[in-house]
C-alpha cells in the first residue's frame, strides 16, 4: 500500500495547477468566466487538451493518454481548488466515461479522440425528473422505428447540456436501459447557471435520432454504473480541492483579520474549529485516494463500494468544512465575490450531483451484517 505520487504524476499536478492558477488565481476571473456566454473559457479547455488532461482516462487506442483514475483525480482536485467552471467532470469523466464503458471500438476512437483533443463538446443526459441517483433510465424511452432508434422524454438536470453531442440514456422497449449518441441540435435544450456556477440544462427529446453505444438493444446499466462510480470518485477529488482551498482561506483569514484589536487567531474557540476542519480534510484525503486506487486496480463491485465510502466521507466533511469556512469568515463568507462562499456552494452541488451522504450510507448499511470488519489491506 502506497499513497505517494510518482514523478510523472507530480509533474502533471504541477502543470495543471500552474495553468489553472494563471487563469483563475484571481477569483474575479472565474466569476467573469462563469458569466460569459459559454459559462467557461474555451481557450483554457484547449490548453487542458494540449496538456493531455482531457484524454487521461482513455486508452491510447481510443485517442487518449492511457492514464487512469489517479491522474484524473489529480486534475479534478486542481479544478476544485480554483472552482474552474470548465466541464471536466461533466464532459470527460461522466459523458466520456459512459462512451468508454459502452462504445464500440470505432465509437470510442471517434468520440474519445475528439473529446481528448478538445474539439468535441460532450454531455451526459441521464438524470430524469422524479428520480434520485439511479443507474437506469425510465421516463425517457427509446423506440425502434424502422432501423432507427428514436428517443423521447425529458432529461434534467443535465450538466453542460448545451453540447454538440449528447450521450443519452433511455429505457429500452424490451426492458433495461440503453445509451445512445444524439446530436445536440436534435434536442430542445434550455440551459441555466446553477447556484454554484455550473451550467445545468433541461433536455427535451421528441423522437430524436440516437445511435446506440455498443451493441444495439443491449442493457447498458452496468456500463453506466461503472461510469457513474468513477465520476463519484472524481467528484470527491473536486471536493477535496475545494475543501483544501476553503481551509487555506480560513486559516489565512484567521491570521490576518482583526477584531477587538487582535487577530482572530487569538480566539481559541475559532482555532479549534479550524483544527476540526483540518481533521476532516485529512481523513477525506485518505479515503478518496484509497477509493481511487480501488478504481484503478479492482473490479466494478469493489469500486462501487469504495465510491460510496468516499462519497459518504466527503459529504460529511464537505458540509463541515464549507459551513465552518463561512462561519469563521463571518459576513464576507456570504458574498458572491469572495472565494469561500463559492467553495461551499460548489461543495453543496457536488454533494447532490451523484448521490449525497445519506444515499450512500443507505447502500452501505444494507450490507453491514455480512462481514465482521473492513480490511483495506486484504
Amino acid at each position: 500500500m502506497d499513497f505517494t505520487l510518482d514523478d510523472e504524476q507530480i509533474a502533471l499536478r504541477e502543470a495543471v495547477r500552474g495553468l489553472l492558477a494563471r487563469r483563475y488565481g484571481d477569483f474575479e476571473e472565474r466569476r467573469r468566466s462563469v458569466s460569459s456566454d459559454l459559462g467557461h473559457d474555451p481557450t483554457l479547455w484547449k490548453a487542458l487538451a494540449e496538456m493531455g488532461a482531457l484524454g487521461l482516462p482513455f486508452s491510447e487506442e481510443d485517442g487518449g493518454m492511457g492514464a487512469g483514475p489517479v491522474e484524473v483525480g489529480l486534475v479534478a482536485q486542481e479544478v476544485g481548488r480554483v472552482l474552474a467552471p470548465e466541464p471536466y467532470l461533466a464532459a470527460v469523466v461522466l459523458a466520456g466515461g459512459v462512451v468508454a464503458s459502452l462504445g464500440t471500438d470505432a465509437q470510442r476512437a471517434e468520440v474519445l479522440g475528439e473529446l481528448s483533443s478538445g474539439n468535441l463538446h460532450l454531455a451526459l443526459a441521464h438524470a430524469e425528473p422524479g428520480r434520485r441517483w439511479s443507474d437506469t433510465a425510465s421516463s425517457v424511452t427509446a423506440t425502434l422505428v424502422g432501423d432507427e432508434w428514436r428517443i423521447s422524454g425529458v432529461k434534467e438536470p443535465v450538466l453542460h447540456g448545451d453540447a454538440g453531442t449528447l450521450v443519452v440514456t433511455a429505457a429500452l422497449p424490451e426492458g433495461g436501459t440503453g445509451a445512445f449518441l444524439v446530436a445536440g441540435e436534435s434536442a430542445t435544450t434550455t440551459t441555466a447557471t446553477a447556484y454554484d456556477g455550473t451550467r445545468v440544462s433541461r433536455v427535451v427529446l421528441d423522437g430524436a435520432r440516437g445511435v446506440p453505444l455498443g451493441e444495439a438493444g443491449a442493457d447498458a446499466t452496468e456500463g453506466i454504473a461503472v461510469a457513474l462510480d468513477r465520476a463519484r470518485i472524481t467528484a470527491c477529488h473536486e471536493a477535496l480541492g475545494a475543501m483544501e482551498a476553503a481551509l487555506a482561506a480560513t486559516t489565512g483569514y484567521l491570521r490576518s483579520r482583526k477584531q477587538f484589536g487582535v487577530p482572530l487567531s487569538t480566539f481559541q474557540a475559532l482555532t479549534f474549529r479550524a483544527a476540526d476542519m483540518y481533521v476532516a480534510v485529512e481523513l477525506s484525503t485518505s479515503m478518496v485516494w484509497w477509493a481511487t486506487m480501488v478504481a484503478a486496480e479492482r473490479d466494478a463491485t469493489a469500486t462501487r463500494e469504495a465510491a460510496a465510502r468516499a462519497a459518504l466521507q466527503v459529504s460529511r466533511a464537505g458540509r463541515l468544512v464549507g459551513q465552518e469556512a463561512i462561519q469563521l469568515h463571518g459576513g464576507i463568507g456570504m458574498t458572491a465575490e469572495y472565494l469561500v462562499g463559492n467553495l461551499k456552494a460548489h461543495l453543496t452541488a457536488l454533494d447532490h450531483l451523484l448521490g449525497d451522504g445519506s444515499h450512500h450510507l443507505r447502500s452501505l448499511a444494507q450490507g453491514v451484517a455480512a462481514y465482521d470488519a473492513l480490511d483495506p489491506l486484504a
Partner: protein
Amino acid sequence: MRLSLSAEDQAFRQEMAELFTSVVPAEVRRTVLEGGEITEQMFRTSQRALNDAGIAVPHWPQQWGGRGWTELQRHLWHEEMQRAGVPTPLPFNVSMIGPVLIQFASQEMKERFLPATASLDIWWSQGFSEPDAGSDLAGLRTSAVRDGDDWIVNGQKTWTTLGQYGDWIFTLVRTDPAVKKQAGISMLLIDMTSPGVEVRPIQLIDGGHEVNEVWFTDVRVPGENLVGEVNQGWTMAKFLLGNERVGVAPVAMVKRMLGRAKEVAADQLDDPVVRARVAELENELLALELTTLRVVAHSDGGEPHPASSVLKLRGTELQQAVSELVVDLAGPASLVPPDSESDLPLWARRSAPVYLNYRKASIYGGSNEIQRQIIAGTILGL
C-alpha cells in the same frame, strides 16, 4: 404549572389567526408559505394592512400604536403571523429604530417619525456594521463632523439588509474620535435621498441581492436628526442588543418549513432513516418552542429570562439544519435554478439557495459566537 392556554389567550390566538388571514392579501401569504421571494411592494402592503388593523407594533407604548398585550399574547401574535404566512413587520422599523426613538428621542422627533415608521411609509435601513467593525461594533469609523448646526458624514456601512428599498437610514457614527471608542459614538438619522449617499449591492452566494454597502461622501445631515444626545450612541446600541434577544427564535417559520418538507417529499418518509431525521428535528424544535414559551411567560414586566439567549443560537442552528434537510430531500433537483424552465418542482429548485442563504443566520445580528460569549460570560460567569 398549567399546560393549556387560558380561555382568554385561546380566544386571542383565534382572533389573531382570523385577523391575519383577513387583512393581509392572500397572494402575499401564499408567496410566503411557498417559500417564494417577497417583493418590496408586498412588504409595504402587508405592513400597512397590519398597521391599519392596529397590529403592526403591538409592543410599542399604546400612545404610539401599541396594545398593552402580555408577553404571551405578543408571542401568540408573532407565531400566528408566521403560521398565516404574513411577512413580519420590518424589524428595522418596529424592533429597532421605533423602540430607540420611543426611548431616547425628543417628543418632536417621535411625532415626526413614529407614525410613518409603524406604517412603513418610511422604510428604515440599519447603518451599524462596517467593513472593519463587525462583531466588534464599537470599532466603527464612519465620522460625523459638526458644520454649523449640521453634521457632515463620511464613511462606509456594510451588510445593510434590504438597503436598496430604504427611505431613511439610522446610523451609528463617530462624533468624537478622541475618547474611548464606545464613548464617541452618536446616532444620526439620514435621509437616503441626500446627496452623497450611495447604495451599492452586495451579491450573496445564493445569487440574491439582500444586503448592501452604503457609502457616505460629505453627506450633510441637519442637526435635528441627531437622536438623543451627542455621544449617546453606544447606549442606544446596547439597548437594541438587549431588545433583540427575546423572541428571535424563528420557531414558527422553521416549523412551517419542516411541515412543508414532509408534505412535498412525502414519499421519502417511507425510509426509516429519513423519518428518524425528521422526528429528531421536530423534537428539537419542540424543545425550542417550549423554551420560548417558558421565557415569554417569565419575561412579563421584568428582566428577560436568562434562557432567552438560547433562543437565537438554537433557532438559527435548527433553521440551518432544516434547510439542509430540504436540500437533501430535493437531491439532484436542487441543482436547477428556481427561475429556469424546468420539469422539477419549484420547492426543490429553491432549496439550495435557501440553504446557502441561511448560512447567514448564525452570522448576522450577533453571531452564534457572540451568543455563546454572552451565555458563558453573563449567565455562567466564565
